[in-house]
């Protein structure tokens, strides 16, 4: 099933995330990714919700009923730029250090902290690229990984 990306403009009010999340879960819809953050407009936040529904029409309508939800746009994947941030801490030792750092930087990750037995990488990119990095470093022993949730913006005006 293909993914659908909803870009939801909300009022920055207490509880708005809970309202959106509960509306979605109450109707039994699954969320692949959800990211929230401020926008350039004072008092407005943007949520990017990625789901795998055949039809997102019902979700959109139910979310639109929320008083604090201002606007919902479903993004067209062909005209969308998507980005996600990742922090990943991986085990290293004398033997693996060079190859881990090399592999990571070839994938586009930046090493932000390297210790004797660990290294921390940061990467921004499409979620597929982040998946690749994760798979690449898995054999070395990932200690911890966090991803920030996918955000997306339409390329055309």
């Amino acid at each position, binding site marked *: 099933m293909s993914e659908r990306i909803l870009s939801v403009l909300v009022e920055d009010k207490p509880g708005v995330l809970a309202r959106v999340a509960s509306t979605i879960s109450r109707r039994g819809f699954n969320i692949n990714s959800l990211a929230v953050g401020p926008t350039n407009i004072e008092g407005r936040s943007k949520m990017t919700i990625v789901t795998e529904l055949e039809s997102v029409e*019902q979700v959109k309508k*139910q979310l639109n009923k*929320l*008083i604090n939800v201002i606007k919902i746009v479903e993004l067209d994947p062909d005209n969308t730029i998507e980005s996600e941030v990742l922090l990943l801490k991986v085990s290293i030792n004398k033997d693996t250090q060079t190859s881990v750092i090399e592999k990571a930087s070839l994938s586009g990750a930046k090493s932000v902290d390297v210790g004797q037995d660990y290294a921390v990488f940061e990467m921004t990119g499409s979620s597929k690229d982040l998946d690749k990095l994760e798979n690449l470093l898995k054999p070395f022993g990932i200690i911890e990984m966090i991803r920030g949730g996918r955000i997306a913006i339409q390329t055309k005006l």
Partner: protein
Amino acid sequence: MSEEKLSGAELVVRSLEYMNISTIFGLPGGAILPAYDPLYDSPIRHILARHEQGSGHMAEGYAQATGELGVVIATSGPGATNLITPLTNALMDSTPLLAITGQVASEAIGNDAFQEAYTVGLTMAATKHNYLITSAEEIPQVLLEAKHIATTGRPGPVLVDIPKDILNQKVEWIEPKLIEMPGYKPTLEPNPKMISQAAELIKQSKKPILYVGGGIIHSKANQELFELATKFKIPVVTTLMGRGAFPDGNELCFEMPGMHGNYTATTSIQKSDLLIAIGVRFDDRVTANPKFFAQNAKVIHADIDPAEIGKIREPEVPIVGDAKSVITGLIEKLADTDLNTSDWLDELNQMKKEYPLSYNQEEKGPLKVPFVLEELQKLADDDAIVVSGVGQHQMWISQHWNFTSPNTWLNSGGLGTMGYSLPAAIGAKAAYPDRQILALDGDGCFQMTCQELITASTENIPIKIVVFNNGNHGMVRQWQKIFYKNRFSASELTHHTPDYVALAESMGATGLRMIEKSDVKKVFEKMLEIDDKPVLVECIVDPEDMVFPMVPAGGSNDVVILNEDDLKKL
């Protein structure tokens, strides 16, 4: 602007007065106590319920009878949690409700303080919207906004939670003003293109049906509906929430379809080539299995709530808008179209003759609810308001009572809340002291909120209550007969405990009883005569009686079970 400072509590009361609220329902407690003090001097009538659930249903009854906002006030913690049932009920039936709850002091929130409950969280899915007040200045503005949200668009309940310290905070009154809410702009005017498309479908239709519900009543569109139906001779079916939106007895009215609807109403939809659905939501009690629902029909679906359109059935013509504007638009577009529906009406009338609603009241046998209802309606005022519980009696009332105007039938349709009838009747009577308010309840339902009879007596609200005592959770028993091989697990209540007459008398009401056919008229005459206090009539009825027709849940509306013999079809 006045310079005097008012407490948050005074602002609450002043805001209610400012919004012309004349009656509220509630029950005090620690966190809301500051608000009860200025209430003491206010012209607003406060009706003290015996349970917050009762106060919530009272506010609902008030709102459903008048079409205006109902207001309920409760304390924090258990007061607020007791409101969850009426809030959910109001959400399901789109009743405009404002609930004001006290909350523990701001600094104690989140500490599991005494009588703290996370009211905003708990009621998030039980309200159209809710608020936690964080400073006293907000109170007038938020209450006005809450009323606006509750009463416009698709109406519903809104809750405002106010911490106790904020009720005590002193600030200036700032006159509230409705400002634009960026995320709340209900669409009232339908898209003219959709109206044109709908009119085209109607013109082509040979077997149209107006399938209408509560939306007509909320929109006060009954006159427009009457014009649309009668001008173009389109038959009408009214859902459980829409009873009274189109007058029973009119030659075009085929009354209620669905699980316990009459055969003709249910079948008319199955045979129709065009459903003109207005202010309805294709509830499963109407559609049964939606796969088999109205398979031969195209659908025009008009609703003020866009989320209802396409939720169950994808319509050929979706229309978002207020029922009144939609219908007015349709009448204009159809102009002097001559719809020839006479064959279709003949077919329906023939069906109605062949499959009438029936009951069998024997001369010496136990009383049957439909018979009792018909006798009562002969004696009751034309503008009496009937308030039902949930169960067999509810279905019989909807089937056998003739509803001729909107807001005369109050019931819990969407949530099916037992215990709704008596308190909702109190709310209706508080709104209309001069009208007959008849709470027609089941014995099981009555026992859920019967303490509100004390509210009725002490607040001098002389409603009339009929308790249909079949000694059972009758509807449960009926399902156990049909689907569980007569294994009556936990559905028996007994006919004799409590002694309803003594119970009524002990609560300050008059208690009467009817057992036989010959009692019915006499006892009802007496009941209707008494007008200075509540009257309760215990009506002992046949525990074995079952509601028919019936379409089992998830079944097809093509297979209507008409009577006990028909159960073999299952």
